């Protein structure tokens, strides 16, 4: 290499390094002048939250929930999705005594039939969404609380936790469900609800019709015979209105109700 080449190399290195140094110095100065004081706990808590921004806690994002926790507007166990581990981490970050995590919920579709099994009042040929089907004469099923099977719930689920094939009853994958509640709002028949995650046995029917009527249009609908209430060894089942309710605190999953139910409405999920 001759002297001229060396000069070019040296000047270019010096020039770039100089520009870089000036820019870096300027940025350091700017970040000092425009520094925003952020509570370090917000970042720490935001990291321990699941980060799926599901909105089940009522805040638009996990970061917003973290801000609310630090500001004292929300309890450290506000995140249902995170469960015990997240609550523990958040309590540690906040420096408060550990509190019990909120009970986790999961969404359940309280219908065991869907359009495959339920008798139809008429042939529906409109827009293929549950909302539109419900608007057309109150739904094409004889049952007023039967799943219409167009998967509005699956379409809104942000976690792909609802498997759906057209014309069939959608299935909620319990491992993926975060209880964000979007499907509950989307269902025009209001047959999806949140149940405690520890509950394993469900009465899959939401009808308000009388038993004799239900028998005519649905093979798996609850006819209100009360056998499950009588036979449950834990006395965990009570009648509330037309449908038996299972108390998850008492249920020991003996599966007696599943065996005695004449219409096989009660199922373990």
């Amino acid at each position, binding site marked *: 290499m001759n002297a001229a080449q060396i000069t*070019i190399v040296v000047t*270019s290195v010096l*020039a770039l390094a100089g*520009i870089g140094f000036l820019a870096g110095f*300027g940025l350091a100065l*700017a*970040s000092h002048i425009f520094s925003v004081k952020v509570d370090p706990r917000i970042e720490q808590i935001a990291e321990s939250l699941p980060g799926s921004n599901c909105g089940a806690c009522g805040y638009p994002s996990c970061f917003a929930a973290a801000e609310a926790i630090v500001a004292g507007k929300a309890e450290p166990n506000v995140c249902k999705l995170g469960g015990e581990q997240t609550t523990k981490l958040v309590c540690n970050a906040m420096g408060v005594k550990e509190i019990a995590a909120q009970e986790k919920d999961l969404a359940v579709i309280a219908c065991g039939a869907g359009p495959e099994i339920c008798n139809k009042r008429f042939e529906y040929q409109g827009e293929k969404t549950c909302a539109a089907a419900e608007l057309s004469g109150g739904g094409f099923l004889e049952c007023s609380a039967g799943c219409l099977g167009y998967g509005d719930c699956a379409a809104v689920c942000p976690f792909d936790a609802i498997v759906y094939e057209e014309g069939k009853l959608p299935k909620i994958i319990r491992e993926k469900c975060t209880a964000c509640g979007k499907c509950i709002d989307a269902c025009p028949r209001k047959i999806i609800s949140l149940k405690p995650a520890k509950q394993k046995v469900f009465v899959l029917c939401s009808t308000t019709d009388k038993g004799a009527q239900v028998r005519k249009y649905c093979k798996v609908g609850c006819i209100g015979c009360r056998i499950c209430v009588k036979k449950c060894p834990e006395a965990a089942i009570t009648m509330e209105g037309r449908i038996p309710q299972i108390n998850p605190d008492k249920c020991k999953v003996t599966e007696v109700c599943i065996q005695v139910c004449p219409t096989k409405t009660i199922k373990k999920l």
Partner: protein
Amino acid sequence: MAGEIQTLGLIIISSVLVNNFILIRFLGICPFIGVSSQVDASLGMGLAVVFVMTMASLVTWIIQTFILTPFGLGFLQTIAFILIVASLVQLTEIVINKVSPTLKQSLGIYLPLITTNCAILGVAILNIRANYTFIQAVVNGFGSGIGFTLALLLMAGIRERLDLSPVPKALKGAPITFITAALMSIAFLGFIGLIKI
């Protein structure tokens, strides 16, 4: 003096309308599609780009004239300019974070992405190629930013209305946006021949 001011006026009209960065030069398309779904966010993005473009024109002109050209380091132009642009974007981010955290959230990832927006590097390099004076370069940078904002705002306005229009299913989302952008570009072609510098 009057001639100088007239030239500056022509540069502004040229950079805003005739040589609009997005619709005529096709630079900086990414934020044009990415941030143009709401008028508020696109206005914020546009103003951030105006700031970065003006500052980049100013600083890169100084660097080119006083460092690169005298020392014969023209080959370092790209890397030196990228360095400047990246630092300026970082600066903008710091300032926006202080002034309006809400704006920062609505801009999201597109704010740091101004760094890789070729429109900024484009305006810096075009300033040098056109042999602009210092003032002309800064005015051109400012005008280009305004042109960028104008295109972004027009697009956002159209897209807000498109959301409520019955668009065929196959064209929903990105396809109809691209078609709209193409039609806007054709419309802006009408400005060619408006002025000659």
